[in-house]
């Protein structure tokens, strides 16, 4: 009697789910009880423990309820585990939607500062978001197109920022002269650092770039007489509008155009400056994707061994991606320096690299639109939850893990091939198998 047997032996779905949730809660209790329940506090007489059992109860309750709910809904036995799966048709439609949305988004970004109800805060936030959009697009060349995991991207951002700040401080060069120089110097550093390490496999490369990022930061921190050490560099000159400064003077921007002086002019100008820089990054990337070098990048990401077999010089291909990515980070860095007027090694910590990487990864590696959306969501979200600054980093780490589990190729993961026969079709990222190289 197989049927009757199964009926008798198999416990109800709820019982199984309950038991599993109870186990999870037990584990959570073990994790949370010492860490959340007993807090080390320093008092007059030394270091002591404070008890906070309420937090433990909350954590355990959340785990229990969450696990039970998941067991009864999404993880129900017999239900297909298709959490991250989106039908290709829907994905293709989304991609087409994105195609129309992108020009709209650019238009929106262009008119935003002109709208009457836009406040200074919104423009400032716009500048911040666009800086990260640009950095995301720059890193997208390295991570998204060439498939090289770079955990030290912020080092090139730092090189760009310090290049401008130091050139301005020691030689009095203007922003417009330094902008290309900062890009070139950052690209140069990209080549120097990239050349020896680009032969390594993916995860080794990640750690070495991380180490380089830290080395550059430590050097900036300790080279007192040259970089100012932890005090940083202040009084970095602001950019001018074709030689016109944004000040109250008679030859300033406002006086020349017969406008009333307003500090907002400079903010709006900076906004358009970073918008233009970001769009240039985007444009260059899109064009490069269609060139042989861009195709080689993507081929390299998919299968390095196949690339080598086909006679692609993998070192040069990787190096160009690395250098170009570094160059855009250098541009963004010198913009950052001129916008802030003050830089210090504090701004170039590993967290920044992780943040930019998260933007690229969450947006969908290789997808320009996805990266832009991710930057808006992440930086906007960070600003929104500024009051909960303690918890937002916890959430940030957790979201990174969850996105990897849910959609490892990022949110927008369709691939539109740059070379095609007869008809162009978008391919879902989840259908693409990747080689290991």
């Amino acid at each position, binding site marked *: 009697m197989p049927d009757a047997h199964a009926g008798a032996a198999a416990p109800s779905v709820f019982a199984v789910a309950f038991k599993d949730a109870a186990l999870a809660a037990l584990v959570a209790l073990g994790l949370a009880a010492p860490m959340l329940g007993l807090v080390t506090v320093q008092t007059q007489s030394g270091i002591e423990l404070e008890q906070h059992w309420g937090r433990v109860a909350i954590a355990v309750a959340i785990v229990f309820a969450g696990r039970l709910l998941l067991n009864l809904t999404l993880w129900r036995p017999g239900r297909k585990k298709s959490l991250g799966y989106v039908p290709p048709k829907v994905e293709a439609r989304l991609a087409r939607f994105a195609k129309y949305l992108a020009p709209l988004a650019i238009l929106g970004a262009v008119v935003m500062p002109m709208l009457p109800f836009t406040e200074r805060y919104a423009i400032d936030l716009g500048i911040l978001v666009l800086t990260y959009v640009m950095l995301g697009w720059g890193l997208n060349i390295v991570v998204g197109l060439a498939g090289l995991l770079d955990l030290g991207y912020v080092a090139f951002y730092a090189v760009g920022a310090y290049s401008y700040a130091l050139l301005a401080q020691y030689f009095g060069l203007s922003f417009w002269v330094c902008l290309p120089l900062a890009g070139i110097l950052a690209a140069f550093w990209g080549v120097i650092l990239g050349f020896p390490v680009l032969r*390594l496999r993916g995860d080794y490369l990640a750690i070495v770039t991380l180490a*380089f990022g830290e080395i550059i930061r430590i050097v900036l921190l300790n080279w007192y007489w040259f970089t100012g050490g932890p005090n940083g560099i202040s009084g970095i000159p602001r950019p001018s509008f074709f030689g016109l400064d944004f000040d109250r003077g008679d030859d300033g921007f406002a006086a020349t155009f017969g406008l009333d002086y307003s500090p907002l002019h400079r903010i709006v100008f900076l906004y358009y400056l970073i918008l233009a820089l970001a769009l240039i990054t985007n444009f260059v990337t899109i064009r490069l994707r269609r060139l042989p070098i861009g195709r080689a990048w993507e081929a390299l990401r998919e299968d390095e061994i196949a690339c080598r077999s086909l006679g692609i010089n993998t070192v040069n291909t990787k190096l160009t991606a690395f250098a170009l990515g570094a160059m855009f980070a250098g541009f963004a860095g010198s913009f950052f320096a001129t916008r802030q007027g003050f830089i210090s090694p504090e701004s170039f910590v590993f967290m920044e690299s992780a943040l930019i*990487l998260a933007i690229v*990864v969450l947006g969908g590696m290789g997808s320009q639109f996805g990266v832009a959306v991710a930057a808006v969501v992440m930086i906007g979200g960070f600003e929104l939850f500024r009051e909960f600054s303690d918890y937002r*980093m916890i959430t*940030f780490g957790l979201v990174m893990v969850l996105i*990897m589990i849910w959609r490892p190729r990022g949110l927008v993961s369709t691939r539109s091939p740059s070379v095609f026969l007869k008809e162009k079709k978008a391919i879902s990222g989840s259908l693409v198998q990747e080689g290991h190289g």
Partner: protein
Amino acid sequence: MEYFLQQLINGVTLGSIYGLIAIGYTMVYGIIGMINFAHGDVFMVGSFMALIVFLALLALGVTFMPLALLIVLILAMALTSLYGWTVERIAYRPLRGSFRLAPLISAIGMSIFLQNMVQVAQGARVKPLPPVITGGYQFGAAEGFVVNVSNVQIIIVVTTIALMVAFSLIVSKTPLGRAQRACEQDRKMAALLGIDVDRTISLTFVMGAALASVAGLMYLLYYGVIDFYIGFVAGVKAFTAAVLGGIGSLPGAMLGGLLIGLIETFWSAYFTVEYKDVAAFSILAIVLIFLPSGLLGRPEVEKV
């Protein structure tokens, strides 16, 4: 001469701590071929666990130090192992067979999560612990130079050697170790032969986390100060140690740890303290470029 000897002793102590963390990296890399980026933070959690358990014992009135330290060691290992197990279960197991960079990115997320969780839960300020083990030995007073060996240093080195021997025996002699080595060579084949691969990988993470918590306890005893950020730099250095010794090799991790500890100590002693991290990180790059398989590792064969 006495300065050199003193630095040698300090270096060996520091190297033991790095070596213990490095074993966690090397074992995980050996078995699933991924860099467990969160391992440094598991070490940090381990040192916090040690501090919390120690203070709890003091509050409960356990003041006999050897007993207290033994309980701290065991409880910290158990609690941190639970963290290691959970991290693997949540962040890495669902990603097995996913694309190449996914586990590493997930590990970075986990590292950020652990760091900030500890910061929120325990506060961002440094946690000082007054010296628990005091005293030590002096050598060479008669010959005119003095070299100090503190009891803490002796305990650290002896514990490290004991644990190294124990874990080497586990890996080489027990069924679990056999399963681990089988999974390292060919996971699919091991599964076909009846090895529970998931369980083996979980236990590898548990072992790594247990050793990291011992390192955390020693760090706490040796430096007397911990904070939520110690995992990052210590993690990168221990990873360097694992790579230097040859990733995947247990004795290699210990050797690498010792070398990194010595290099860092001597660099600080004879050159500049500010750039000691630069020295360790540069070694990582240099080793990876010129000696990718490390000192005791096998060269990696790429199969298509």
